[in-house]
């Protein structure tokens, strides 16, 4: 049964439904983002955890040259090791009839007669390999999908120089390849790179690895130290060409998912916080106005014996209804958007089943956070109203005290119109209200800047990556390091205009206690295909000695130009040397180390060898060139710039675009909500004054001008402030995204600022129109009766 006070609550709310809706919408935007991002985090984290557990994803990984199988037993005996899975992992070249260029892949071995101990596969389609079968493979889903391969189809693999047609038994997923990408490539190209699994016996005999393994995964015993196990493992594997073991934190597929989760964490806090702050301002504005209007009603309630507490609760209920409406709307929107975004992740991440999972802890949290924001926003004014002695409250509020505004006292008052005077004096008389409005509007303007800043940053990175740094049309890798002589062969391929050597070498770089494992890129001193640029965008000429590394890597290592870094080769003769850090490079994706190609070869104590090359090619003869590459067995992979770029545009850019449009839509809703709410309050407060003006002969337009002037003045204050705030928000977010895998430059364009201003102006114009329409419905005769 509704109490009479509840009845009053609902009727009052119905009268102010426009504003209730505006506040609820802003709250809903914040909560939707929070619920969406937190649920995505929960979905990704829990799905990954379950996948890892169910399929026994390893915790430490090591690549080596070749070790006898009995060594795996020794590894298993190491303290802290729980289970070990030795296997073979080799790079192969593929010939796909539908592709111009050669494709490549990674083939892994599977035990011949049992399921693997670790990194078990998930069968998506088809069947498992039959024990003892030959010429059968399992293929990873991303590659199969990109090339429309089905169980029963066949592909041609180049196994250790020998062409072999194999048939696809099944399409599988692996916890090691949630993100399928060529090692070292910043961006995936699932069309030209795939993962395959074959029986151990067949793969071992093709690569002369009978009774041996070259890849090892293991899990840790509970409580074991990963660091200690890795150190022991490296000690054991070094004689067998171990390239340095690494944990999950350095596992490429694991990192990609973790990075996504980290960005989501960032988004789950920053944006909702700002939105809820705006909502708190709005609630305060709406309720302060209501309390002034209902001053006499409060007095009557108190005169009849309602306690202060009952009155405080009654008015807090107004705020809580808005919170409840916002929570319901926000939850529904968050769940719907979450479902949509999870589908998008299917394009990047391969899980057996990644579906949207609502983070249920987000709901009470959302309710709590928004209720706290709303309560904070209104508590002080509600308590002030409740404390008013009834006799005093019963009298109408005395006419407001005004004085000439500061701007008039400064002497230019004579130039001002009456409309303008009314507006500035109103603003000056209620500075807190004006401040809240300006703050809300400024925040709304500010959050409009961020999504576009991220979009512009991504565009800039890509332009920088593909137009400034990478000037070649394509690059390729060789199966094994080979003599530089092969460049002559490359040079004579059809359509080649320029070719440059690339020497990649896996190393560990240490400075003091800090170390990182990565591939040094050996390039010509004046590399024109893979340019190395410094922070001022000038090309760094690679000196005959010394190392140039990404600025971010230097930061991570704590090294400065001039410091001596320890470089340990993880391949070949496993040489170790101290190399001077001679320069820092500006790059945005991953971290890199560059060296003169001769210096790399000297460091590794090898002759003039290269591991790949980069090309510029006459576009007219591109197909000829690619076909010719297919006939060079030593070429293991080819990366075509334009196809990477297109791939990026369709996947990552589309992903960022979707997120950006969601956030932008929310920011627009907030801008509209704040402006509309403000205009409505202004109208409600001034209804009597405006009606009087209408009665004494002012036209609608003239009266509208009084209302709009105040709105315009506040916007003029708020918008520049908002642009400043937006710059701050963007800087903070871009700084936070500054990680080793991806960094974004802070790009703030005039277009971005102009867009924010435009949205606020449009929101203002639209709200003004809505309010002006209300103005036309003013009851003129009613305004002349006793003040409310």
């Amino acid at each position, binding site marked *: 049964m509704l109490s009479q006070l509840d009845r009053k609550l609902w009727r009052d709310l119905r009268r102010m439904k426009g504003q209730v809706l505006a506040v609820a919408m802003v709250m809903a935007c914040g909560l939707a983002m929070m619920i969406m991002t937190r649920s995505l985090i929960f979905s990704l984290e829990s799905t990954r955890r379950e996948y890892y557990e169910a399929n026994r994803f390893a915790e430490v990984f090591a690549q080596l040259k070749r070790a006898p199988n009995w060594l795996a037993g020794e590894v298993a005996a190491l303290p802290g090791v729980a289970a070990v899975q030795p296997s073979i992992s080799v790079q192969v070249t593929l010939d796909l009839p539908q592709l111009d260029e050669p494709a490549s892949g990674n083939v892994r071995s599977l035990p011949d007669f049992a399921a693997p101990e670790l990194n078990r596969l998930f069968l998506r389609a088809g069947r498992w390999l039959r024990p003892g079968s030959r010429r059968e493979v399992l293929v990873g889903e991303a590659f199969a999908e990109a090339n429309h391969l089905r169980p029963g189809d066949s592909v041609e693999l180049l196994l250790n120089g020998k062409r072999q047609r194999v048939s696809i038994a099944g399409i599988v997923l692996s916890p090691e390849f949630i993100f399928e990408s060529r090692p070292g490539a910043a961006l995936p190209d699932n069309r030209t790179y795939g993962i395959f699994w074959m029986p151990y016996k067949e793969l071992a005999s093709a690569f002369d690895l009978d009774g041996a393994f070259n890849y090892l995964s293991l899990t840790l015993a509970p409580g074991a130290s990963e660091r200690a196990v890795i150190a022991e493992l490296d000690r054991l594997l070094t004689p067998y060409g171990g390239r340095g073991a690494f944990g999950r934190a350095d596992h490429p597929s694991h990192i990609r998912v973790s990075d996504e989760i980290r960005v989501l964490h960032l988004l789950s806090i920053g944006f909702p916080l700002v939105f809820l702050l705006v909502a708190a301002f709005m609630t305060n504005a709406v309720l302060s106005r209501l309390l002034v209007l209902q001053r006499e009603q409060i007095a009557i309630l108190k005169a009849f014996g309602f306690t202060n507490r009952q009155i405080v609760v009654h008015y807090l209920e107004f705020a809580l209804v808005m919170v409840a409406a916002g929570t319901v709307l926000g939850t529904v929107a968050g769940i719907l958007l979450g479902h949509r975004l999870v589908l998008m992740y299917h394009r990047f991440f391969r899980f057996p089943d990644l579906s949207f999972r609502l983070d249920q802890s987000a709901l009470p949290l959302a309710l709590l956070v928004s209720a706290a924001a709303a309560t904070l926003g209104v508590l002080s004014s509600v308590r002030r109203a409740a404390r008013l002695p009834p006799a005093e409250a019963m009298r109408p509020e005395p006419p407001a005290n005004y004085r000439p505004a500061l701007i008039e006292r400064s002497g230019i008052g004579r130039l001002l119109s009456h409309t303008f005077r009314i507006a500035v004096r109103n603003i000056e008389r209620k500075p807190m209200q004006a401040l809240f409005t300006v703050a809300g509007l400024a925040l709304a303007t500010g959050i409009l800047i961020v999504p576009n800043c991220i979009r512009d940053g991504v565009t800039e990175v890509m332009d920088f990556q593909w137009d400034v740094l990478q000037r070649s049309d394509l690059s390729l890798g060789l199966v094994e390091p080979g003599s530089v002589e092969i460049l002559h062969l490359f040079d004579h391929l059809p359509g080649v205009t320029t070719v440059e050597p690339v020497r990649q070498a896996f190393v560990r770089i240490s400075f003091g206690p800090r170390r990182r494992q990565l591939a040094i890129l050996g390039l010509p001193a004046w590399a024109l295909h893979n340019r190395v640029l410094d922070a001022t965008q000038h090309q760094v000429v690679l000196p005959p000695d010394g190392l140039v590394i990404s600025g971010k890597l230097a930061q991570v290592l704590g090294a400065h130009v001039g410091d001596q870094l320890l470089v340990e080769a993880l391949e070949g003769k496993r040489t170790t040397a101290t190399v001077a850090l001679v320069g820092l490079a500006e790059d945005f994706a991953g971290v890199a180390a560059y060296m003169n190609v001769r210096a790399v070869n000297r460091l590794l104590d090898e002759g003039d060898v290269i591991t790949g090359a980069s090309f510029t090619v006459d576009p007219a003869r591109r197909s000829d060139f690619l076909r010719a590459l297919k006939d060079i067995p030593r070429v293991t992979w080819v990366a075509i710039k334009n196809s990477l770029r297109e791939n990026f545009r369709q996947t990552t850019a589309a992903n960022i675009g979707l997120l950006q449009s969601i956030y932008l839509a929310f920011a627009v809703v907030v801008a509209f909500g704040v402006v509309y709410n403000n205009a409505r309050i202004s109208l409600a407060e001034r209804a009597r004054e405006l009606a*009087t003006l209408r009665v004494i*002969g002012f036209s609608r337009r003239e009266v509208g001008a009084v209302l709009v002037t105040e709105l315009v003045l506040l916007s003029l204050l708020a918008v520049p402030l908002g642009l400043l705030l937006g710059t701050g928000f963007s800087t903070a977010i871009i700084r936070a995204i500054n990680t080793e895998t991806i960094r974004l430059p802070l790009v703030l364009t005039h277009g971005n600022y102009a867009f924010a201003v435009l949205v606020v102006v449009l929101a203002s114009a639209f709200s003004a129109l809505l309010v002006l329409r209300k103005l036309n419905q003013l009851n003129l005769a009613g305004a002349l009766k006793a003040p409310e």
Partner: protein
Amino acid sequence: MPSCAGALSTTTAPTQVFRVRGLTKVYGTGPAEVRALAGVDLDLFSGELVVLLGPSGSGKTTLLNNLGGLDVPTTGELSYRGLDLTAADEDELTTFRRNTVGFVFQFYNLIPSLTARENVALITEIATDPLSPEAALEMVNLGARLDHFPAQLSGGEQQRVAIARAIAKRPEVLLCDEPTGALDVRTGIVVLEAIQRANRELGTLTVVITHNAVMAEMADRVIHLSDGRVQHLHANANPKPASSLNW
């Protein structure tokens, strides 16, 4: 500037300003229907001061609102100098109010953020042949409080600013709805003096609503309204000056 105001007094023969016939105004429909005016016949002439008397709910305010173009009647004739107010659209009514009518309300309805002078100037800026704000305020004896804000004025002073605002455009019609309703006797008389002075010096047709019968003594004509109709109407041969009233 009383001399200036004096020059404005009119000596021409009274002419018909409003013609009202069979005027009805119905609010709401069905069982909620309220008949505020149930057929009013009335003529109002230039320069006269008319007091409209009647109990609450008799239709005084509705009639005044219709005369002032704030509201349109449901049926009947209502014309101002031949202009049919029942057929006028919103813009025409605004123009009518702007150029012809001055309003004085029970609760003054001043703009709190403007000073006395500015409240008056607000009107003089949009009128075609106004008094200066200072002259209008002088007429209601507020020449000394030009730059005070409403909150710094007493109720009577605020009401006199409202009168100054109403007469500053030299309206042909001055409509006052309970102008002394919120004031004590002494202050009320000062306000009535101001209204009477404006009526005499500017020759404005002045209609004053009240339920205070004493005020009838200052009127040229007194109209009694009850149940939405004119009950009776009498002319006052010797209207008294407002200063001699007492209640």
